């Protein structure tokens, strides 16, 4: 008994130290693909419920994110932040940015310098992102969702920063802010990249939190990502009060993840979906090379995800319909009911 009491005592001591002293890196991936946001605004003004918010949702989101980043920086002088935009044209680092120093001073000059250094760049890069899109051609504006790509970039960034700060045992977490569309199955096509993100996040001990704004309540793969990395998944209707969600539910320090009860809602759907149809699979097929799940035998005798050719003999065997020979007394089977 003494021994047990001893270890607990010692452990508690080290714990408090750990929490107080360990700086952490907060990486935020925000979905800025404009189509989804426009659609979201349209839907909500159409339903008339919260249409009179007065401000553009994207502006509201930007402000919330800036405050959220500031809050994180305020927590510990060693804390670091990173903001990545998953835009319609691809992903872009908003902070830290490769572009030169801020020139437009879009943030109040009265702000605490530590915040302003970051915020100036964030806001300016955000502005440029849209300015560039406005100048672009329509044809170029495809609906490519770059969320998984942005998540991968975020994780590589986390990995780099963790490697650079090996001796300070920096902790890390990743927050994904995504805008859901009415269809709600947009990320089905990103199953494999998101899975890869989950694996690498688990390996790096980086938890993934997700805020989904609008759209369907569930988001299977992102929910799986949060579940596998002890993160938090939240679905909110719009950006009103987003900062409150961010500063409460999304502010759990990585070291407290196992102690704090998380405000997750609902249960995670662990079932896999078909790569081609997007439907949840009960009985299906799996590519033995990339583990992609299919509910139907894919056309063209090759894997739709990785292009591995399939053995035509096996495909033929899979196509066979179940048969029962005539010799079976079928009445018996039915009577088993």
């Amino acid at each position: 008994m003494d021994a047990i009491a001893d270890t607990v005592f010692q452990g508690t001591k080290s714990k408090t130290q750990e929490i107080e002293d360990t700086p952490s890196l907060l990486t935020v991936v925000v979905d800025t693909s404009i189509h989804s946001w426009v659609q979201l605004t349209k839907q909500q003004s159409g339903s008339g419920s919260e249409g009179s918010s007065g401000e553009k949702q994207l502006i509201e989101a930007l402000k919330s994110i800036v405050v959220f980043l500031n809050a994180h920086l305020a927590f510990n002088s060693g804390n670091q932040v990173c903001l990545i935009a998953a835009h319609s044209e691809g992903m872009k680092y908003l902070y830290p940015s490769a572009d030169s120093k801020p020139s437009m001073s879009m943030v109040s000059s009265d702000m605490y310098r530590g915040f302003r250094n970051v915020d100036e760049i964030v806001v300016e890069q955000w502005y440029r992102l849209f300015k560039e899109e406005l100048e672009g051609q329509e044809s170029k504006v495809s609906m490519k969702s770059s969320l998984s790509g942005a998540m991968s970039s975020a994780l590589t960034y986390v990995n780099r920063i963790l490697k650079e700060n090996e001796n300070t045992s920096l902790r890390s977490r990743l927050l994904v802010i995504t805008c859901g569309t009415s269809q709600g199955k947009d990320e089905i096509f990103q199953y494999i990249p998101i899975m890869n993100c989950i694996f690498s996040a688990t390996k790096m001990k980086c938890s993934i939190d997700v805020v989904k704004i609008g759209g369907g309540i569930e988001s299977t793969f992102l929910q799986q990502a949060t579940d596998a990395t002890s993160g938090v998944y939240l679905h909110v209707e719009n950006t009103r009060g987003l900062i409150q969600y961010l500063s409460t539910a999304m502010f759990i320090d990585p070291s407290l993840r196992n102690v704090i009860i998380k405000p997750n809602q609902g249960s995670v759907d662990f079932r896999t979906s078909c790569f081609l149809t997007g439907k949840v699979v009960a009985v299906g097929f799996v590519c033995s090379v990339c583990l992609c799940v299919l509910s139907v035998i894919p056309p063209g005798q090759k894997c739709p995800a990785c292009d591995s050719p399939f053995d035509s003999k096996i495909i033929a065997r899979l196509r066979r319909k179940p048969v029962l020979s005539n010799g079976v007394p079928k009445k018996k089977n039915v009577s088993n009911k």
Partner: protein
Amino acid sequence: MSETHSGAATYKKVNGMLRVDEDASPANLIWRSTDGDKSTTIELNMVDKLQATPASSDKMMLRIVGKIDSGIKKRKDNEGNEIPIKPPVHMFTFNNRTVMDNIKETLQHIIARYKDEESTQEKHKNETEISPANTPVASETPQPSHLPQDLINTAMLDSSLTKSKLLSNLMLQQSLLKESKELMNIFQDTVIKSGLPPHEFWSTRIPLLRAYALSTSQKIGPYNVLSTIKPVASSDNKVNVNVSREKIHTIFQSYPIVKKAYDDNVPKNFKEQEFWARFFSSKLFRKLRGERIMNHDRGDIIIDRYLSLDQEYDRRDDELLQHSVRKTIDIEGNLNDDPVKKGHRPDFTMRSGIDPNGNSDGGMAILRGMNRLSEKMVESLENEYSRVNLPQEDPDKEEREEILYSDLEKDAPADYAEIKLKRKVLDAKNQQMHKENSSVSWLEVKNEISSITTFMDKSTLDLTTLTKISPEVTRSINQRLMKAVKINAKQSKHMNTDQMLGTTISSTSMFQEASKESTSQLPPSILESCRMLNNSCCEFLKHFYINFQSGDPRKTMLIKKLYKNLMDCQEKIDSLLNSVDSEENQEIAKYCKAYLVHVLDSVNLGIHKYRTLVKQGHTA
């Protein structure tokens, strides 16, 4: 007879010669007076102590104290007390210290060997009482009887790993089941209790069987076994060697000469233990190990007789390992054999008995011996792991290619593996999404963007607007989060927070939690039966679908059987759920249901599919 084994010595003031006779068994120390009138023989296995005057002393005397013969009856003195029997003592005086030291050393070796043997015999005597099986049978060559038996034939590896061979290898299957408790549980539950054909059970586990067969059948290849044996001479000059059965077996395999020596002498001349003690102090051992044999090395008089025979063995090996000499000019060889660097003399490896420095003390022989050993090792693997089936190398291929003129031939084009980027599929999907989003026009998007940019153009970003949210919104958000936390807290209330904290503190990784047994609301016994049930249901489902989808009418009976098994599974799940469902156990019942509902759904789907098919058969 080498010098070390004999020398002039005075015994009982008579001059004579002292000689060690190792040929006799047991070995003797024989002293004979110069005139040949007197002689004394001491059996060396009966020696208890050996003492010599120290080097600092002028006197040179060797004292041998014998053991008390237990056969002698104990005499009693007049008062009835036992008279302690004095052990026999022999004292030899020398006139040359080197001679004395040599004889002393020889005697030390021999006596230590006998003592060692005695102690092991003593040990064996004790061991025999406990486990008679452990005593090695000295009269027989040690067979690798207790080496693990091969589960597959590694010489025919390819055929051993075929599906049919694996399915019929009961020994392999049993061994795998013994190894894996989890698999054993499933096997018992499905095959033994519910009558799933074992063939079916294993047919879905061929890769598992194959991997197991391969991993267990990996053998230690031949290696330079003697180099791993490090005899340690203790203070009393005893050679301490511990050799395992496996090593002895390997020694016999690698060195037939040792096997011959063993067969010749054990148990005729000496016991097994003595044989190894002799062998490890012999020159033969040094030679086989690839050590230089010094002239003053003691060696072992009996074992070293095999040195000459070993040379004969080596000669025969050399003939077997002969490499054919190339008939064309060996350009590569000539490049290596540069006369500018090395002169015109034949390479040192071509001159007999000379090493690179021109010495002839056997360095060359060591090199040869090691090369011979390496080649034999490689050769002995020729038939292992299906190497026989490998395409035979064409011995003349290199030669033929060498004489071809190939300078003008074109370089082979570089061949790269093609990686396809799936742009098209992605674009197709994006188009699909685009269609879904077509309700948003480019104009709307453009308007939205420009309104954002103009808003940002107007002024600096005012973050204070975030605080201007109506209290209702704030309250509702707060309530929503609190509600979620409360629900989640209820679900994890069973968890002892102290314990929880303890584990998180001790774990350096926050994901370590996952590797541990996750906490469950269920009592362990119910949780275990839920798990078992889930496992066996999945097992039956797997076999059901494999056969059901096979489209093979011959499988009808099997499918029917598996269908019945699914029915049993359904019944078992139902009965388990019913058994836990009581008033006071609402929570447990809820969790049981949550755990098993998915597998129950799957079982029901399987049953449904089968029935539909049967019905179709009726209507058709």
